[in-house]
């Protein structure tokens, strides 16, 4: 039996972790099951991803597909065709734009990601507080997260001073945050829609010596960030989960199903984002994870 796994290339920390978990799982399962084969591809854009899927079908005769679509819309058609041809399809994280194509859906929840962070802001900050937002690469995921965050803040009296794209990159976030700090004499909190960007933002805040004025909430559960939460770092009071290990879950579920009785478990597995606080941080800290 062959399982195809197609995920985005490691262009930022979270995607890197995704790659790491995928490779680990594939290696482990290949050892575990003799007659199980995997085809793992990583892609830099939706077009390439479609090509990869075509190759898997045309030349590797896959029996099941685990795919994290680069973008929902463009991948819907191709994945639908694969599903229609009788191949088992597990979609991870990014839902397709048509319902009921995939057999199994394992996902994080971008909306909950933004809302969880937003709720924490509303809870913690006073009315009239000022926050700035570092957004990711312009994509639908980023839009969902930011919209949910804004919705959570609605009516709370917390003012969003500005939003700029930090492109899920430490360097870009560092630069944008530096400029936010020059621009606004008063900032009470920063929401970075990803832990990589949070690292950059913290770098800029420390440089400006304004650690005492504001804190930063990132997201996705990067090891170092969870550690800081655990240590009670006042700069990083909490974090929001969006576990890259969901790919491992998806691959495992697919493989186990395929190997045991030929029919994997189907349905939806939505992994909602959770707030990591000092109290529960130890549950979210994984020593060996690269992320």
């Amino acid at each position, binding site marked *: 039996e062959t399982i195809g796994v197609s995920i985005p290339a490691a262009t930022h920390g979270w995607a890197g972790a995704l*790659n790491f978990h995928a490779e680990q799982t594939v290696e482990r399962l290949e050892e575990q099951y003799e007659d199980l084969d995997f085809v793992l591809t990583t892609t830099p854009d939706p077009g*390439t991803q479609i*090509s990869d899927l075509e190759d898997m079908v045309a030349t590797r005769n896959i029996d099941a597909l685990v795919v994290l679509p680069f973008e*929902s819309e*463009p991948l819907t058609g191709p994945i639908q065709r694969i599903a229609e041809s009788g191949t088992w399809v597990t979609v991870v994280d990014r839902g397709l734009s048509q319902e009921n194509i995939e057999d199994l859906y394992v996902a994080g929840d971008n909306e909950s990601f933004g809302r969880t962070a937003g709720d924490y802001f509303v809870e913690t900050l006073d009315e009239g507080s000022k926050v700035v937002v570092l957004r990711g690469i*312009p994509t639908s995921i980023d839009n969902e997260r930011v919209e949910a965050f804004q919705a959570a803040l609605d009516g709370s009296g917390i003012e969003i001073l500005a939003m700029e794209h930090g492109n899920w990159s430490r360097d870009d976030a560092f630069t944008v945050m530096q400029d936010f700090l020059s621009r606004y004499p008063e900032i009470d909190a920063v929401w970075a829609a990803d832990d990589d960007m949070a690292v950059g933002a913290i770098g800029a805040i420390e440089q400006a010596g304004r650690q005492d004025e504001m804190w930063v909430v990132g997201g996705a559960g990067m090891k170092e960030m969870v550690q800081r939460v655990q240590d009670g770092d006042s700069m990083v009071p909490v974090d929001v989960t969006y576990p890259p290990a969901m790919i491992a879950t998806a691959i495992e579920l697919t493989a186990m199903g395929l190997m045991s009785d030929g029919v994997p478990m189907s349905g939806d597995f939505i992994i909602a984002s959770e707030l990591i606080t000092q109290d529960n941080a130890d549950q979210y800290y994984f020593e060996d994870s690269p992320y």
Partner: protein
Amino acid sequence: MKIDLHVLGPILALVALIGIGIALNSNFLSYGNITNVLARSAFIGIIAVGMTFVITAGGLDLSVGSMAAFIAGLMILCMNLLVPSMGQSLGVILIGIAVALAAGLVAGAINGLLVTRAGIEAFIVTLGTMGIYRSLVTWLADGGTLSLDYGMRELYRPVYYDGILGVSWPIIVFAIVAILGEIVMRHTAFGRHCAAIGSNETVARYSTVAVTRVKTLTYILLGCLVGVAVVMYVPRLGSASASTGLLWELEAIAAVIIGGTVLKGGFGRVWGTVVGVLILSLIGNILNLTDMVSPYLNGAIQGVIIILAVVLQRKGSTAT
């Protein structure tokens, strides 16, 4: 007869890759795989044919990838706007196609005129427009993805997936563009003037070649071909976003040069470009066909093969 590696080089590289492909996977030569590889080469291929003219005439265009994304976005937007009034009809598709071609023409003309009239290096002009188009498509899509109306997509789909006699449309269009390109390059005054301008612009001007017009036309031609590529691309994905067409420019330029066209201009060959495009597609295809290397290293393998393909060629041309 002397063996001219300058001519044979790219072909040998292609044959070698095909050999490797066959050795690694028995499905490599299957109808499905060949169709896939050829069809997906079509976008870059169509663009690279246009790029061959621009480079032969001593120019360069870094904006084609972003331009493709922008035109795709514009086309989808227009079609979606028309659906309410015109319904999901062929008319909408035709208007969409017209929009794509016209947008390509205009975008190409802008690049061309900035290069020829304002006298700015092509590298800088198109680096600028590259940023501009990329931004515009992000803005059009509001940071997300522009998707074609679902019904329209079903109607338009066959343009990518169907074909005649088992040959899919993108392959047919690519073949036509390549053949026409080869003819224009070798058998018309335009092609010859491109080479003359790339070789020595002053000489071309002194020989009463309409330098400005020909140079501008190469960019317009390229723009139109980007439009054609988009017309084939949109039915494949039915969407456009900020990541559409990323790095296509580098891939197209690499294909042109692997094919034997001289980067500084003066000599170009369209068939070489086609071979170059196929080489680049095959590398990706073959890497997908095996698990030999860590997917992280795909980029490294591609880099090595690009350099090797050109070394082979250059060594040949200096030896003979």
